């Protein structure tokens, strides 16, 4: 996967490309087919009227990995998915999926991609079985009845096969849509916000399905608003903001990039004073008052002890602890205005 946010210039030929991943060389296209990226988005720009939905986005997804695209509403996640699926033609840049350029005739390619659209796109007035029968016909699935029974069992909907979809809960509809995406056994799955609008139990069921997909060696690209979801499921996470890829790495590496999180215990009055003082301290990215005192986000090169010493000069600090930041904190530190997705 190529590093972000500084993608290399679009290559003139495929063989010339030597992408960089956090300073480390990554696999070039001429390597063995199994090492070739399943998805290769290079310097893509998408413009809708005056809105630039994607602005020079580059992303590589290696086979067998789960990659999450995270960002607030309007960040460009669905546009990126549409570009990868060939539904939207970029104004600039190239997109290769499973080795094929999506700018060409993608009919054969489409048979190798399973997509869960954000809106599920189910025929709600017919049964789950009828939905899958139609999808099987669309993808030319051999022995459709057996395969439908198999995927329904996989998502735990075997008992509801003959029920009309209109009566399904949001979570069941999502699971049915995942079953449909799996029906033709595609090597690449694209899931656009797979758990949006579902309850906690259904969310965890869907997570379990996605984990089983990864265990089965499939490549999964998913978008999500939920950072905990990305952290729980993804090998790598790409953070989009206002159409730009602001970071892309493993969740752990993104956390390391952000630096540590220091929690200082003090009285409320002291926390206010301390917050004002530490905001100007070198290496402090951000400070926020919390119920136990103050939470301080540190730069990568800042040691917590220095900050604790500085804090004790301002007010009485009763205790402190450091920990790795979670993805929410990473996101806040990587986006200028701290907007949460």
């Amino acid at each position, binding site marked *: 996967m190529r590093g972000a946010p500084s993608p290399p210039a679009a290559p003139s030929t495929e063989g010339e490309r030597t992408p960089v991943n956090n300073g480390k060389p990554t696999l070039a296209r001429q390597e063995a087919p199994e090492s070739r990226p399943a998805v290769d988005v290079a310097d893509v720009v998408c413009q809708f009227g005056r809105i630039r939905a994607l602005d020079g986005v580059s992303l590589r997804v290696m086979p067998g990995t789960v990659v999450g695209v995270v960002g607030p509403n309007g960040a460009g996640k669905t546009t990126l998915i549409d570009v990868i699926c060939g539904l939207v033609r970029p104004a600039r840049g190239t997109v290769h999926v499973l080795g094929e350029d999506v700018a060409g005739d993608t009919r054969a390619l489409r048979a190798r991609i399973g*997509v869960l659209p954000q809106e599920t796109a189910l*025929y709600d007035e017919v049964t789950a079985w009828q939905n899958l029968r139609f999808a099987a016909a*669309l*993808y030319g699935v051999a022995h459709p009845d057996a395969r439908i029974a198999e995927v329904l069992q996989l998502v735990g909907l075997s008992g509801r096969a003959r029920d009309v979809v209109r009566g399904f809960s949001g979570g069941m509809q999502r699971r049915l849509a995942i079953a449909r995406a799996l029906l033709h056994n595609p090597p690449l799955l694209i899931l656009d916000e797979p758990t949006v609008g579902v309850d906690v139990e259904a969310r965890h069921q869907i997570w379990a399905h996605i984990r089983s997909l990864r265990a089965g060696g499939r490549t999964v690209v998913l978008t999500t608003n939920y950072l905990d979801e990305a952290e729980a499921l993804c090998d790598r996470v790409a953070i989009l903001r206002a159409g730009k890829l602001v970071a892309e790495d493993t969740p752990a590496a993104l956390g390391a990039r952000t630096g540590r999180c220091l929690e200082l215990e003090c009285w409320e009055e002291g926390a206010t004073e301390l917050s004002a003082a530490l905001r100007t301290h070198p290496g402090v990215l951000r400070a926020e008052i919390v119920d136990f005192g103050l939470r301080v986000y540190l730069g990568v090169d800042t040691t917590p002890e220095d900050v604790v010493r500085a804090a004790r000069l301002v007010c009485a600090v009763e205790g402190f602890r450091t920990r790795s930041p979670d993805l929410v904190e990473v996101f806040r530190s990587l986006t200028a205005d701290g907007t949460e997705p």
Partner: protein
Amino acid sequence: MSAWRLFRSSAGLEAAHLLGNRGFVALTALAAVSFLAMVSLFGLTGSYAPVALIDRDGGPLARRFIEALDGAHHSFALTYLSEEAAEAALGSGRLVGIITIPAGFSDAVAKGTTVPVDVRIDNVNVDLTNDMQRALPAAIVAFARQLQFPGTAVQMVEHDVWPRDTGYIPYLTVSALALDAMVIAGILGAMATAREWERRTVKLLRLSPASPAIVLAGKLSVAATVAAMALALALLVIEVGYGVVPIARWTTAFALLACVAIFTSVGAWLGALLKRTLAAVPLLFGLAMPFYVDSGALEPTRFDGDAIWALAHLSPVYYAVGVLEWAFHGLHVTPEPIWVDLLVLVVIAVVAVILTLGRLAKGATR
């Protein structure tokens, strides 16, 4: 990939949707018959415009004049009424006019004296006024000819262009089938495509490797079948209820099916263009009546002036009326040959299908 399996599957989905909306399908069939009734009212109201006849003479020549009046070409119903009843009915708007044959009519006619026949007309509708103004002189000429009065040497010798007369109601009912085809097949076609955007399932179609043409064919085949069933019901009402029978049954059936297929395609394009059933249905209803009236539905448009006739060429209903009147009654109501009418309809359908496929394959998914 089996095209046939995809076609069946797509048709099955559409059928399941329509079966789930039986009320809508029943109302659609009812609409086909109600349109028929609506256009029939145009003819029925004129045919039975009531006119009172007051015979103050009662003599044999008065009776023969009344017979001539009855036989003259007009679209009103003569009814014997007393003077008081006739005046009251005219005053309350229940009569179009009163014809009064004066006392001494028979004697005066026998003596060769000119007799004034008093006619009072409620000229609120100039068409009915004109009708009476035409009918009375015609009756007087026929009456004089029967009595061999001098001075009526000129006589009309009729040579019909068509082997049989076609009444106004039979003409209207057939053109109503074109209106039915446009509205019913158009709406069902529009629903079949617009719902793909409403449910966002168009994205599913675009993401799949399947040919959108086969999916569309499956959906439209069901929409067209339901529309054809509704039109078959309307045709049954025309034959059994109105007693109007086509001169060539198979040709009529073929022409009707062709119209259904064509308007289903046009509806599908409108549905794909507007992406909302709620937008497509009012548009189809809104277009239906202007297209219908300016299509030779009430009479051949070529007699309505060049501008109206030229405008009529924009309406697919114009060509459909031309084809259906020819198939049903053997009439040529458009100056263009029937094959041209049919060809234009086929071209409209093909263009509509191509545009619809373009929308399904490449248009916006929202």
